[in-house]
């Protein structure tokens, strides 16, 4: 599945999206950690279908998933 990346996370990854195989939030976090240098030091939230999800969940594979660094609007 394609995961959207933004801000400092897109910068670290060198791309605005990343293809991953992840069946759950936990495996997604694991994958991001292994694929993006310095990911552990970053603050981030994960949005599933444009809503932030904090708990673990399993993915059907069709979700729109995005990794969001801290907000800075205004």
């Amino acid at each position, binding site marked *: 599945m394609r995961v959207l990346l*933004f*801000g400092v996370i897109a910068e670290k990854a060198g791309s605005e999206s990343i293809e991953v195989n992840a069946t759950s939030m936990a495996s997604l976090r694991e994958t991001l950690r292994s694929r993006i240098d310095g990911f552990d030091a970053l603050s981030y939230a994960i949005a599933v279908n*444009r809503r932030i999800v904090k708990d673990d969940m399993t993915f059907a594979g069709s979700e729109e998933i995005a990794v969001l660094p801290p*907000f*800075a*609007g*205004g």
Partner: protein
Amino acid sequence: MSETKAHKVKDIFVEGPIPPNLIATSIAKHATRTDIGAHEIFLGQVRADVRDGRLTADNRLPTTVAAIEYTTYRDMALERMTSIREEAFTRWPSMTCLHVHHSLGTIKAGELCFMVFASAPHRQGAREAVAWVVDRIKTELPIFGKEIYIDDTHQWKHNDLRDSGSSPA
């Protein structure tokens, strides 16, 4: 004001700085709404804040914000904004209009990047609504800001609620 109280998804994003003329045009459009007695407008302007910059042997050299480059997760931002609008009209039912603009792209220090504009028969509703909407946008909209310094270094901005202008406190 055909869009008054319409709760459909509206695009709030503007490429580049918000021109002062856009605000004048917005204000002028309300002259036909003679039930309005009060407009309250918040404008965010990019500040040339001084930051810790390059590390030398002894210390960090100070540097200054030259611009902020804004990006967004647009679909989520507009969905969140639609909810915030709906909740604002529920909380302040007398509010007649609410207009929001946020810049994307590079906004230089001194330029405007954010506008929240509420109108109501009386001033209290408009004032409270603007303060509340500004806070909600700063905390809930996925908008990202890269502070670009005069020495061409950069750093990613993040809001915390003690922060109150258009750069971190």
